[in-house]
């Protein structure tokens, strides 16, 4: 099952760009199926924290800590993008009420 198909393209691209900037990598290296713990991305716990903060800042949302064991389902770039898309849409619905 590929849940990444439902992520709005704008958000997916922004998330990929922010991850690439945080890790100082070309954006082509950051595909949606790349794993966060993959050696190729070179992301350590500080990198994950910086990413967390950069995404909160960019989308004006609150995210759970990626590095905690309570977040085992956030494994790939696509998982992050799906999480962000979910938070952004919850925020938009909340704002409309």
């Amino acid at each position, binding site marked *: 099952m590929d849940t990444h198909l439902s992520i709005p393209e704008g958000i997916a691209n922004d998330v990929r760009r922010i991850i690439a900037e945080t890790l100082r990598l070309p954006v082509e290296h950051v595909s949606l199926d790349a794993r966060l713990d993959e050696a190729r991305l070179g992301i*350590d*716990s*500080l*990198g994950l*924290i*910086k990413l*967390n*903060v*950069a995404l*909160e*800042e960019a989308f004006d949302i*609150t995210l759970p*800590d990626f*590095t*905690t064991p309570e977040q085992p389902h956030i494994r790939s770039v696509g998982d992050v993008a799906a999480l962000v898309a979910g938070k952004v849409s919850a925020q938009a619905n909340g704002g409309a009420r």
Partner: protein
Amino acid sequence: MISAAHTRPEREAMERSPAEQREHERRVVAEHYQHDVEIFSMVLDSRLAYATGVFVRPDEDLETAQARKFARIQAKLDIQPGERVLDVGCGWGSNLLYLAEHTKGEFFGITLSERQREEAMRRARLAGVAERVHIDVRHVEDLALEPASFDVVLFSGSIVHMHNREEIHHAVARILRPTGRLLISDCYYPAEHRGDRESTATDYIFVEALGYCRLVHLSEELGFIERAGLDICHVEDLTSSYALTLERWIDNVRKNRRRIEAISPGFSRLLQQYMTVAKLSFARRTALEYMILATRGRPRVEVASFPIAPPAREKGEQ
């Protein structure tokens, strides 16, 4: 006693002479605290305590937890009229002013940040205690104090910035009078090696965010205190309280991100990043937070009556 393995910033500190390290701390530690107090007012409690509160329930708010901490420090120190209190690294005066407002002691503080001194003195005047509160911008190792001239020496979230720990404890013991009290509230490494102390996250928090930090084992600090001639009276673990305190601070950074960025671009990011590293470290107990009380000679406070604070004070009432 096993000494904590030295981190990179510590190894660098050991290559400096004591005078060079003092200059280094003066410069790099002050930097963080020289940021606009307006920013810290958005993130911390109303008294600007930049150290852990005391939570007895995980759903409490920051103000309640910090009020309980102030009351607990007051109870542990049991300051008598006219007693002289020195707060080393007094910040914006949270403990110093609380104690000045709630006891009849005479209060002296030092900080490395001129802006912290100004704000603390402004608050002292507002609280009507300025005639009993004196604050200087000075490094602890530059204090030339009379032996046996103080009844209380306090370090709250500050001794972690000081490298020459052993010498500092000797100096503290020298300036304390008999029955004098030393109180430290700060961060320690567990004796059992957990977590990666050479990680980029460690470096980020110790150097990039906070200038200079040296974490030792609790047993090392207690050893320094004992060898300086003081008796350990009480040690309290506040590790889980610090994780909760940091969670509240991080939420406040989130709520005020735009306002913080307008004053100091990039600073909200630095705060949230270093506070998250710290929060996760305390949550995983790769770093520990303790409040230590020691006395010179016979303690003023009866240890048998611990917990010291009476129930009314424990609610964090003013």
